[in-house]
């Protein structure tokens, strides 16, 4: 400890001493500066985080749009598949393949034993 001040007191040999801890000493200006610096750093950190989240948000929206496009393409293919399976389409195809209307349907009762292939 460093003695800052020492003065005599009424009694001989007794002194009134004021002591100060030795070490780093910060004045009001320094404290203000440090406070401002800390707040600035915190603000910068917050801004950086917000910016990153916002950027990610835009990227997310881009991905959402891409997803919507893929879904729309999927939907288009499903509709196209349904159209190809439609009875009108099958009927047209059957004509192209030279299918003819059935004249008579014959029914066979269930046969026990083996059935000749030819």
């Amino acid at each position, binding site marked *: 400890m460093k003695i800052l001040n020492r003065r005599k007191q009424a009694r001989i040999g007794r002194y009134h001493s004021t002591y100060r801890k030795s070490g780093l000493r910060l004045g009001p200006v320094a404290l203000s500066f440090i406070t401002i610096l800390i707040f600035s750093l915190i603000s910068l950190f917050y801004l950086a985080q917000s910016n990153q989240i916002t950027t990610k948000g835009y990227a997310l929206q881009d991905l959402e749009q891409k997803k919507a496009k893929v879904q729309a393409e999927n939907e288009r293919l499903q*509709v196209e598949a349904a159209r190809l399976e439609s*009875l*009108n389409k099958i009927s047209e195809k059957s004509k192209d393949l030279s299918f003819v209307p059935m004249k008579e349907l014959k*029914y066979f009762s269930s046969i026990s034993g083996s059935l000749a292939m030819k």
Partner: protein
Amino acid sequence: MFGFNAVSSNLRMEEQGSTKARITFVFFIVLLVFGGICIRLFQKQVIQHAHYEQLAYDQRYKEQKIMPARGEIYVGDIYSDTHYPLVTNKTFWSVMIIPQQVEDENAVANGLGPIIDMPAADILKLLNEKKVYIPPLKRKLPDEVSKKIEALKLPGIVLIPETYRDYPEGSMGAKFLGFVDGEGEGKYGIEGYLNDVLKGQEGKIISERDILGRQITVADSKVVMPKNGKDVVLTIDRVIQFMAENQVKKAVEDHKADSGSIVVMDAKSGGILALAEWPTYDPAKYTDVKDYSIFQCNAISDAYEPGSVFKLIAMAAGIDSGTVTPETGEYFDANVKVQDAVIWNSQKKPYGYETMTQVLENSDNVGMVWMIQKTGKDKFYDYVNSFNFGKRTGIEIDGESPGAVRDKEDAIPVDLATMSFGQGINTTEIQLAQAMGAVANGGLMVAPHIVKEYIDKNGKVQKVDPKIIGRALSEDSAKKITEMMVSVAERGHGKQARVKGYRIGGKTGTAQIPRKTGGYETDKFIGSFIGFGPTDNPLFVMVVRINVPKDVIWAESTAAPVFGEMAKGILNYYQIPPDEVWKEEQIKREKGLVK
């Protein structure tokens, strides 16, 4: 000196007083201004707080609607559990130009014009008008066209996706489906009837947006998810529907008729298996239709005087009330007088002695009048009510007509007589199918319905159960009427409706069309055939109607053959083997070996 000092002192005092006054004056001015500002601030920030808060909110937050997906409509067949889409949703594109973003007007006009089939000069003219907003140049562009436009990569051209209804099976079922208009509302048919179920509920995102309108994800947002519409699976069998559409179109064209319709109903559940009409329209191009009457589903909305098909209902009343039996006989002349009216049979010749079965086989009006006079008005009306004529069936299609039945109190003897053969009473085909279903179903009447189940977007299925309305006649009477109907098909005017090897029951009806000025048209008729089969275990009930054929008059030649072709097709489709014993009997009857 003393005077001078006194004057200076007075002057100083006066100056001080003047200064003080000026300061006070300025003070009050400042106070006034400050007070005014405070009052204004109070007015804006306290009294009008809510208003400015809303303005600020509207500026920062934007509400974006999320449109729900409209429910789709499916049909099936008997050979798989697959649901085939009859109506689905498809994304099409609208192309717009944003004038402020266009860099090269000529490039836009020359690039876009050929793709969307619009003259480049017209596009250039729109751009040169320097408007802030140009409405979409073309709507409902398919994907292939949108890709070509995207490939241009020209600034200022924007493609906006829009959802429209799409019909993979073309115009199949158009008359009972209806369509969706430009506002997204269902009109006519199932789209109209079930609009609230199919439409769903809009959602929204309320979020803070940046200057470009993009959502700021770190800021607050509120999302209300849309509720998508429910999908609907119909009772329609797409194979039977396909058959019916082809048959009715062929019949109308062959006979040069005005129109025609076929209703096929599951005999036990009341589920509609097919409802086909011709002419029809393309629901994807409903805006091209000029005559709006084509949007109506005639089978449920166009009530008509059914003619002789109604004899089955009148006879059911006579049989079930115990007034007559199928074997009850009498001698009948060619005509009968009721009050001031003379009622003739269609052949204008007497049939002589006929049983009630033969009255139906010959479709003898005179015999029917005799029978209904014996039955009486009260009993007859009891059966008209128990068969639900004059009331809607409740089928899930917009625009159903209840038909028209004269009030019992107003019905005079000639009305009763004419109603016995289907004149003076208006019914729809769906009502006739419902009534015939009761005969096929042992007397129990089931309500016709076209919706089989609803499926929400989570996959939860809600089935529609058959609804039994009540007992229209006893099981025994139903059997008797069935046998009489088989006799009509085998020996009477319904021969063209027969299918070899199968017991099919039915009745023809060639109805006159009332004139608006009174009486009936002399050269216009409606041919109908109603029936069901196979009669030992009924699979289907069918009503065929051909309106105003030009080449032949009688339903025997117009509606009955259509019924026969459809019945054959349905039995083959269901793979019902023929009754060989019955087939032998039919062949013998044709050769005159048996009666």
